[in-house]
């Protein structure tokens, strides 16, 4: 299969499947189960397609005579697309019990999910600011609605409105920034802008500098960096658990994919100007995020706050990208994978034990789970250890790469600060483990059913462990080294 075919097939598949479900949902043959499995199959097939591009270095413009180099398909795009398609697949697979037990998860929800993934795919391939904006908005709009899916819940509606309002507010910065850049560079194509930046003095491209900064603000909003990410606690709290997992794990990957592309192609020349801002942002994000996480009483809000901290870690790598390009960029990809697999697992566990209700899970609700449901408790423990960056989990390797790239770039103090926040994070992550194992409960035996959800939770937990210790000693399963190599290839393909 040629790369052009794959590049067209993946978004086309997502889109056509979405439209099919939209129409099919009105017919009397539709059942929720059928919609669910069609979506799952679509995600799986498109994941397989996209993953064909991993590990070989290539870069091509898609149908240049039609799209005029607005979209490109390279190893970078293929890697990211496979990442979040896998993420979408896992989220949905684990959410089986949630899908079945809620009445607000209608066929439109599947459609929205597919639309948002379509938007992300295009966003990852976008090589032009306006295309990227449209793709970003397609994805964001779908996610806005997914947040407010439960119309009967006041919290969800509130979250939906807040997110929509602030999201539109932040999008306006992007448009303004794009306009400024176009005013000076006379193009919105990333390659053309890069060309322009290279051949112009730093001091005579102030509009581009200002415009880039505005675009960065939108990105900061989307990844919930402080001070643009104040929405995150309310929105994550209001949204249903699988949707929260989806936003925290999957949506973020797509945003970072675009950000990384923009950074590596254009911003890298402004490195000296932007670095202090990004470093400041990283420090504030990590500090505020961990302060908020420490005081939460509900596990879901704690995970929401801690996702802010994880964005902060990734910002560390972004700050290092100018000085240690290769290691920082591949560290970001590795970290995103590490975070998303743990996040989907952790939110999945919460969703599994809340049995589709929108009840906020408090720490106390986990008491004694280790006795009644040892497998779930062990999986949740593994996810928490991975979040905290405990050795022998994938989270440790992810943090290790991020911090080493920062040290390589000369930001030792920043790396040190990151390590301190990681140390603090042990408090709120281990609190979960403490409640699981060391608190007695008046817990009654509950049957959760849904072996599929459980199976995928366990698989995610095993991946987390394997990613932390994996070798090819006995069996040739890709482990740390292979993942790292994949990230490196992806980054190198940008230079082609």
């Amino acid at each position: 299969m040629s790369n052009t075919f794959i590049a067209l097939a993946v978004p086309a598949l997502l889109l056509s499947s979405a439209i099919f479900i939209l129409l099919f949902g009105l017919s009397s043959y539709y059942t929720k189960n059928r919609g669910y499995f069609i979506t799952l199959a679509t995600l799986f097939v498109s994941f397989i397609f996209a993953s064909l591009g991993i590990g070989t270095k290539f870069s091509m413009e898609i149908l240049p005579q039609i799209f005029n180099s607005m979209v490109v398909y390279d190893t970078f795009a293929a890697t990211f697309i496979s990442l979040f398609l896998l993420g979408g697949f896992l989220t949905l697979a684990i959410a089986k019990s949630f899908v079945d037990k809620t009445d607000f998860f209608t066929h439109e929800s599947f459609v929205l999910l597919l639309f948002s993934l379509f938007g992300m795919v295009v966003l990852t391939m976008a090589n032009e600011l306006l295309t990227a904006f449209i793709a970003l908005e397609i994805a964001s709009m779908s996610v806005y609605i997914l947040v407010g899916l439960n119309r009967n819940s006041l919290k969800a509606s509130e979250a939906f409105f807040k997110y929509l309002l602030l999201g539109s507010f932040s999008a306006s910065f992007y448009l303004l920034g794009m306009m400024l850049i176009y005013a000076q560079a006379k193009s919105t194509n990333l390659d053309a802008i890069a060309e322009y930046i290279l051949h112009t003095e730093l001091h005579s491209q102030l509009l581009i500098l200002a415009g880039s900064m505005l675009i960065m603000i939108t990105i900061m909003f989307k990844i919930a960096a402080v001070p643009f990410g104040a929405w995150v606690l309310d929105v994550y709290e209001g949204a249903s658990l699988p949707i929260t997992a989806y936003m925290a794990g999957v949506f973020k990957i797509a945003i970072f994919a675009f950000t990384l592309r923009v950074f590596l192609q254009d911003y890298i020349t402004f490195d000296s100007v932007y670095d202090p801002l990004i470093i400041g942002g990283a420090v504030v994000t990590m500090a505020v995020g961990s302060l908020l996480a420490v005081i939460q009483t509900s596990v879901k809000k704690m995970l929401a706050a801690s996702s802010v901290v994880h964005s902060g870690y990734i910002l560390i790598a972004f700050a290092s990208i100018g000085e240690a390009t290769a290691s920082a960029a591949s560290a970001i990809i590795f970290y995103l994978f590490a975070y998303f697999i743990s996040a989907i697992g952790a939110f999945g566990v919460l969703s599994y034990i809340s049995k589709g209700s929108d009840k906020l899970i408090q720490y106390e609700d986990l008491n004694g789970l280790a006795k009644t449901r040892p497998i779930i408790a062990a999986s949740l423990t593994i996810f928490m250890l991975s979040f905290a960056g405990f050795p022998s989990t994938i989270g440790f390797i992810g943090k290790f790469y991020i911090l080493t790239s920062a040290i390589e770039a000369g930001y030792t103090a920043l790396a040190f600060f990151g390590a301190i926040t990681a140390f603090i994070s042990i408090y709120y992550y281990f609190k979960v483990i403490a409640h699981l194992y060391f608190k007695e409960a008046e817990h009654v035996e509950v049957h959760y059913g849904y072996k599929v959800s459980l199976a995928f939770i366990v698989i995610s937990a095993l991946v987390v462990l394997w990613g932390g210790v994996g070798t090819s000693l006995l069996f040739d399963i890709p482990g740390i080294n292979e993942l790292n190599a994949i990230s490196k290839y992806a980054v190198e393909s940008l230079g082609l």
Partner: protein
Amino acid sequence: MSVLAILLLAPLVSALLIFLINILFPYAKQYLYTFFALMGSGVSGLLALYVGYYSYFEKEVFISHLFTWLSIGNFSIEVALKADALGSFMLLFVAPVSFLIHIYATGYMDKDKSYGRFFAYFNLFIFFMFLLVLADNPIIMFIGWEGVGLTSYALIGFYFKDIQNTYAGNKAFIVNRIGDFGFLSALMLLFLEIPSGGFSFSNIFLNLAQMEPSSLTLIAFLLFVGAMGKSAQIPLFVWLPDAMAGPTPVSALIHAATMVTAGVYMVARFAPLYNMTPEISLIISYVGALSALLAALIATRQYDIKKILAYSTMSQLGFMFMALGAGAYSTALFHMFTHAFFKALLFMAAGAIIVAYHHKQDIRELRGIQLPKIFKMMAIASLTIVAIPPFSAFFSKDAIMGALFVNGHVGIFMMAFVTSMLTAYYMSRMMFVLFFSKSKQEAMESPKSMLFPMMLLAILSVFAGFLNFPEVFGGNMHISHWLGLPDRAVLIPHAKELALMGINTFFVLLVIYNAYRKYAYTETIVTQHNDGLVANKFYIDALYQRFIVAPIAIISHFFEKWVSQFLIDNAINWSAFGYFKLGEIVAKAENGNVRLYALYMLFGVVFGFVYLYWSLRGAL
């Protein structure tokens, strides 16, 4: 997978399988465990013979690179296995003896309710032992080293319901930690000293010449501290007699034939290093000599059959260290080789007696036992250990005596000589008390699964010596040539060697005769007084307790109370409290008011632009 990988992993796999069966199917049949236990150790045993054959006849060096553990810059640590002559030689007796003791243990542990757990540990132990022997670099060796320590701990405290056994396990583990500290410090120093390349043994030895002589001395000493712990030498020997709390097969395998020899093996492995540090070698010799003498002295006044053997193990290890210190590495290893057979046999015989007489271990209560087969084998083993020609230890011990004699340290030689007389004394004391008595005690003979491995070991005890037949009798020291270690010892003239052998044998026979007069068919063992310096093991345990353990406990209490609880705990609790309060303040800003959120964003934008203006103001 290569031969070595299979050899190494077979016992690990069977250990894991046994663990799984033990956990998942608590009522699994015993033969299932037996099958896996013998599979694991049997495969390794056979492969060890194969490796030994090709190493000896074809001079083949087996290498198996498993994976790269970590690689930082141009420094890498490989998980690689290597069986050179020394490694193959170790395998050659470790693996088959392990297998034989496994067979023996199936008889000894028969119907024990923790049968599965025992063999899981047992197989795990030989896995770690192979890792120790086959390691291509000291770090992997250290993993094996720690692993055997861990399994040894688990097996000493095997019957953990009796708290004394657990204490014995703790003692072994803690005393070994001191040795491990030495080993680990030596590794760190080596890490600092080594200029580049890998951490493999060959690379270390290549770079020895460029290292600082003073730090080499320190490294050599610290490594020996590690060896002291594992091989029960003064001052870290106190754990070995207590370790006899474990089941007898454990004592035979771990605390006689294999694990305790790890220290000797390690020093021999680092022979090029010790050749450059003669002062440390001298210390090794003296420590070995003193340990041998002390242990032999204590053994003459012990009554517990297993403790006598434990002290004799320590004493024999002392002999090996004397030889190592004198630079006669292959001689030391040869003695280790023969020792593995006869000491395992002695312990197995002791175990058979213990089983037959319902777990009595005191030789005063076991007087006049009637086990003819066991007697024959124990007699062979005893004659071997006291070095009567032509039993195997005669050749190995004689070679050590010769090396010490040539080396010229009279003190060490005299201590070795006295020790070998004492060895003859305490062994014959034990034999005569057990089997030559007016009283008679009948018992059932042991099952075949216990007798068969003992017979094989008895044959080996007799004939293993001919493998390294000395030149004085027309042999040509096959093993020494095969090992090819950088021996320093000068060869002893044949006339002197013969004379030494003669004198030695004569005095040994004299001592045995004396012991016969004193203990056979008499009541001496019961009437003899049982106090004084020697009977109380020189009060060493009490001394350690008083002068080392107690002061450390006082210091620990101080740190626990003031540094840990007061200083550290309070600091952490207060900073956590402060952080929590800070979090509550931040949460006030995060209050759900969307207008405020937009305002924060605006602040961010303004700040960004102010910064941009400030950093680019020169251009404006």
